[in-house]
């Protein structure tokens, strides 16, 4: 079962629709047991990482998500769903996050319009099956003011330029996470979901 975590964020419907378009069924949940029982887990997100953490804490989901990921089961994080995997975020003062991936979430540098909003290219720095059928430098849709800065640069699979070069795709074992919104990135975005779900449903290691 493809399980999508509902913690009160807005864009759940577009994620569900994108996956439905690919012919898969989804289960939406905010229940800890459902998270632990998931075969495939998706953490979508918009807004601030600190708020998302507060919601995940309130729903007592941080432990189950940690457990699920450390069991090596397939996980997809989107936008804030990527950011909360890190040690903490600087957004709105320091907020501790899940600390699954060591590193910080930092504010994009001034001198550009913030939020970084619109279609920008993802440079594929590591060959990975998540990019299958997607040309290098394909445009994806971004909406964010903060970016992730992992301590271990080997986890960076995709990079994007906006004032600085930042990490826009992370891969780590069965974990994939993107700063952009694949559910809002047209055909290329649907392909990201399809690639991820194909690998996840086959029970294969994503990496």
């Amino acid at each position, binding site marked *: 079962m493809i399980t999508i975590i509902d913690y009160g964020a*807005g864009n759940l419907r577009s994620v569900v629709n994108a996956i439905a378009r690919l012919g898969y069924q989804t289960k939406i949940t905010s229940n800890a047991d459902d998270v632990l029982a998931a075969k495939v887990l998706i953490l979508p997100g918009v807004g601030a990482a600190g708020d998302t953490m507060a919601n995940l804490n309130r729903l007592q989901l941080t432990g189950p998500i940690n457990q699920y990921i450390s069991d090596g089961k397939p996980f997809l994080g989107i936008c804030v769903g990527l950011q909360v995997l890190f040690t903490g975020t600087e957004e709105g003062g320091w907020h501790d996050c899940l600390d699954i991936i060591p590193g910080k979430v930092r504010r994009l540098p001034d001198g550009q319009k913030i939020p970084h909003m619109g279609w920008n290219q993802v440079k594929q720095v590591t060959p990975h099956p998540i990019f299958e059928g997607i040309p290098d430098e394909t445009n994806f849709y971004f909406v964010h*003011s903060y970016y992730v800065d992992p301590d271990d640069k080997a986890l960076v699979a995709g990079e994007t330029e906006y004032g600085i070069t930042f990490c826009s795709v992370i891969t780590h074992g069965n974990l994939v996470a993107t700063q952009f919104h694949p559910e809002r990135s047209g055909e290329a975005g649907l392909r990201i979901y399809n690639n991820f779900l194909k690998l996840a449903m086959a029970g294969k290691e994503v990496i």
Partner: protein
Amino acid sequence: MLTKRIIPCLDVKGGRVVKGVRYRDLQDAGDPVELAAFYNEQGADEIVFYDITASSDERGIMQEVVERTADQVFIPLTVGGGLRTVEDMRRMLESGADKVSINTAAVQNPHLITEGAERFGSQCIILGMDAKRVPDVSPPRWGVFTHTGTGGGRPTNLDAVEWAVQAVTLGAGEIVVNSIDADGTQSGYDIELLHAISTVVTVPVVASGGAGAPEDLYQALVEGKADAVLAASIFHYGTYSIQEVKKYLAAKGIPIRI
């Protein structure tokens, strides 16, 4: 490099797309869901639905239009028009909109911008602004108008540039700048207005009102320093396709998603 966005805007009334010249003479231009899907296939970077229905009983129709669109269109969708409360915003976002655009309600209650931004994040709260040139002043100034969706429009005491700056401080994540003087005329955007706002705010600015030819979009992006351009008539009546416009802009060196 971040690309410049080309955004078709669909004015929706009672579940149908309409577009009038200077908000009058409404003509039927089609089904919003079909048009959104069509523009998506053509390469539109976002879609904007502007609900020009005033009555609340027709708000449900808009919500259903948004739901049906979100089922099949996988690019960002903004909904504006008639949203008065955080609850109105929530309904549209849950129906599948990615952003909501507020105008009259924000002027009447600026705190609504902050409430929306705190609840849903700045990135989904768009200030839609209708501005009209103050006649015979130099340097130029523009006044903010409300209630433009339902015909005529009402003047306010707000200065367009100052209002834009204030809205960003309050939490708006993007500003759509619509020129009332240019809207529907197809004689070009108000470049001075765009430049005046784009150069003082830190969030993206979307040009609106007046697009008649690809050169107009080019000027809004280059001289007006807009981050995105919104257009209606030229796309709805097939004067230019989105692809034609995008190829024109790309050939002139604008970063564009083709």
